[in-house]
């Protein structure tokens, strides 16, 4: 039996199949959410890449850092979650760069720092997050926090649009 999924473990490891919904579900959701935003908020085409080089470099830098963090977490079993700290850094940078207007980004960064450093206090008993529930606890926790962050981003976006909509004809 697969210890995580409770499925029989044969020649094909069913755990590998999780990759399929892991790709298809976010892709489908992103299409649905994209269509929803187009219908309700309208469609905006971004400036060409050369006009937003800093943004592209920042995004790529974060992606590379996230991959490195993930590798370090899985190989080193450190008493801190490096990927959690990198994500906290990304939220903090977003909060700072957007003029400190979105307090939820700072709160999520603080929450991630707290969770990432929690093993230093002896919780969980193993002294690190990675092995907890077969290594699933870190991606699931980060995924939940990312989802909460996205919902809060949406609420902030809609509220800001309402605040901006004060131009007199």
């Amino acid at each position: 039996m697969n210890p995580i999924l409770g499925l029989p473990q044969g020649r094909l490891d069913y755990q590998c199949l999780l990759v399929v919904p892991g790709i298809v579900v976010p892709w489908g959701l992103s299409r649905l959410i994209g269509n929803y935003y187009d219908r309700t908020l309208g469609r905006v085409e971004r400036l060409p890449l050369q006009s937003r080089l800093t943004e592209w470099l920042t995004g790529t830098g974060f992606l590379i850092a996230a991959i490195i963090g993930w590798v370090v977490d899985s190989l080193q079993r450190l008493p801190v979650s490096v990927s959690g700290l990198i994500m906290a850094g990304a939220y903090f940078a977003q909060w700072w760069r957007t003029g400190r207007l979105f307090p939820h980004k700072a709160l999520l960064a603080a929450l991630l720092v707290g969770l990432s450093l929690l093993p230093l206090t002896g919780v969980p008993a193993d002294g690190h997050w990675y092995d907890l529930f077969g290594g699933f606890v870190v991606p699931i926790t980060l995924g939940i926090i990312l989802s909460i962050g996205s919902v809060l981003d949406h609420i902030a976006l809609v509220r800001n649009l309402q605040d901006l909509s004060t131009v007199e004809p």
Partner: protein
Amino acid sequence: MTEAFEALASLDKIVHEPARLALLTALSACRSADFLSLQRLTGLTKGNLSTHLSRLEEAGLIEIEKQFVGKKPNTLLRLTHQGRIAIERYWQQLESLHQAAQQWQPEDQDKA
């Protein structure tokens, strides 16, 4: 400083109007935007937005492209080269005025 105040009168009236300024500023931050996004952003009614967009198109500051997305009509707006120059020049003028106003001393006027 008098020149700086005089420059206020020389601001492009097409650009200076608040609703059109909001539209041009929004369009300057992207390659193109559709009618709905500009309506959500500015809070203008469809009629007012159409009127302002027509004025901007007549002045050669924006391009209006009508297309279909699926079966639904969609109006796409983008700044022309002239429009991008106009909005950039406008903000530069305001910035210069702001700096001149900060340096202004009432005595300067007395001396003049």
